[in-house]
């Protein structure tokens, strides 16, 4: 399927780009939860792992088509998102963060001890079904979905909850239901990302979905600018590719990576594209074009 790409990209770049695409899908899901709705989640990698294991087990044990496995991964993850969201989304800010952190650890330990997941040995022999072409298509679908969600009645209610929960409720928004829906949608995309990941790497180990990975996803969207779709895309791209391109400095690359983040937070504390919205980008362009045509008429 990736024959077009392999004409001018070697396998290494294809692998890196496919991984980037998967991270983009998952990061955009987290952006909906944390960036748009303002609910801090430290457990995103755990949701990724739920999707990964679900799809892998469906492929291995039931031999169902990849599309079914992916969809099941997304749905299963969303169900767990709802199950976690129902009791915890009454919490706010740091408290919710700690609760999701705990959930992430539980998921990791459960996968480590279950027989069907291969325990600490991991799950190997997953068919390689993920292709770059497919990931690119899914990334575009995800971006479109996120854009539509954000610019709708539903999206407005999410932003309102982030901005002021009390006022949002007083304006007639069912806070609990809306938050849980946002959580389910965000974790759905994490699940799909996990399914793609499983069928790319072909081997799953619970240790790959620990707290550090969850933190990576938060770093992606914080660096890019919380709540901004272009921001989440840029942040994920920069932070996923930076370690690859910094390989030439070998031992120092994680240090440079860290320094980059510190520097970024000082220079642009709201993220690279903080406050930039896709819809507003389009709107501004429109204003500019009408503006120039108006001034052109005056001349």
């Amino acid at each position, binding site marked *: 399927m990736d024959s077009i790409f392999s004409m001018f990209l070697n396998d290494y770049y294809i692998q890196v780009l496919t991984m980037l695409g998967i991270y983009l899908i998952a990061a955009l899901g987290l952006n909906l939860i944390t960036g748009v709705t303002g609910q801090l989640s430290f457990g995103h990698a755990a949701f990724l792992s739920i999707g990964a294991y679900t799809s892998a087990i469906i492929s291995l044990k039931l031999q169902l088509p990849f599309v079914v496995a992916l969809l099941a991964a997304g749905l299963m993850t969303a169900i767990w998102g709802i199950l976690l969201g129902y009791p915890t989304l009454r919490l706010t800010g740091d408290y919710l963060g700690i609760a999701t952190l705990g959930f992430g650890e539980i998921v990791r330990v459960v996968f480590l001890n279950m027989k069907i997941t291969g325990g600490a040995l991991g799950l190997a022999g997953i068919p390689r079904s993920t292709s770059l072409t497919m990931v690119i298509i899914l990334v575009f679908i995800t971006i479109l*979905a996120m854009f*539509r*969600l954000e*610019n*709708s*009645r*539903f*999206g*407005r*209610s999410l*932003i*309102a909850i982030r*901005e*002021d929960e*009390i*006022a*949002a*409720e*007083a*304006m*007639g*928004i*069912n*806070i609990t239901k809306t938050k849980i*829906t946002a959580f389910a*949608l965000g974790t759905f995309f994490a699940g799909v990302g996990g399914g793609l990941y499983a069928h790319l790497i072909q081997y799953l180990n619970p240790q790959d979905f620990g707290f550090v990975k969850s933190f990576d996803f938060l770093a992606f969207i914080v660096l890019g600018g919380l709540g901004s779709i272009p921001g989440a895309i840029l942040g994920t791209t920069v932070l996923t590719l930076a370690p690859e391109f910094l390989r030439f400095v070998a031992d120092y690359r994680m240090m440079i990576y860290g320094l980059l983040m510190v520097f970024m937070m000082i220079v642009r504390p709201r993220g690279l594209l903080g*406050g930039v919205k896709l819809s507003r980008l389009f709107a501004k362009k429109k204003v500019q074009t009408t503006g120039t045509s108006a001034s052109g008429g005056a001349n």
Partner: protein
Amino acid sequence: MSKTILEMDNVTIRFGGLTAVDSVDMKIEEGTIRALIGPNGAGKSTIFNLITGIYPPSSGEIRFRGTLINGYKPHLITELGIARTFQNIRLFSEMTVLDNVKIGRHCRTKAGFLGALLRGPGVKAEERAITEESMEALKILELDHKADELAKNLPYGEQRRLEIARAMASNPKLILLDEPAAGMNPQEKQTLMSMIRKIQDKGLTIFLVEHDMKFVMNLSDRIMVLDYGRKIAAGSPAEIKSNPAVIAAYLGKEVG
């Protein structure tokens, strides 16, 4: 006689040992402007929070158009037709003025996340209606020319008015205004007063908390006075002005 829109019957709320609102009775008639006054800490905002469902009363009954609304969640009470503003402005500051008002339309519309994803003709039509109705609400408060600005960039007086516009967008029958004139200059207060009259002319009932006596006396049909959580007086502005209990609460009793 006009109908009662809101009725509080022996409503009490305690926070630990503190009785913030103590057996308050009140009836508001449809289409009138009612003011609630009292010294700081008298329990005025608590009464608002009781009516809008932020706190359930410890005892007593609150009825809105005949329905018992004790223990209803705030969003359901808004749906029934009570909207409010806040003493310390609570706007969605990173959203545009128009989007703030659109949130007010939330409880009168239905498109969910599936509608958002699929964007069918019904959803698009609903969205157009939301925009139109929100602009209407902005026009009443004379903010329509600022629709695309971020709420946080509005001057203070306009932020207060935006809160009212947002509340209006939810098509309320009763609107609660918590210190709407706070921090406004005399001219802004005049504008606000005429806007509140305009809202009343639309058939809405207004219940407001306010410290500015001139504002209250000019505007309200009836006034209720609260002190230490208890109702100490109720009546027309003229009656309240000459009520000895009210004067004592505000100025203290004469010595000797």
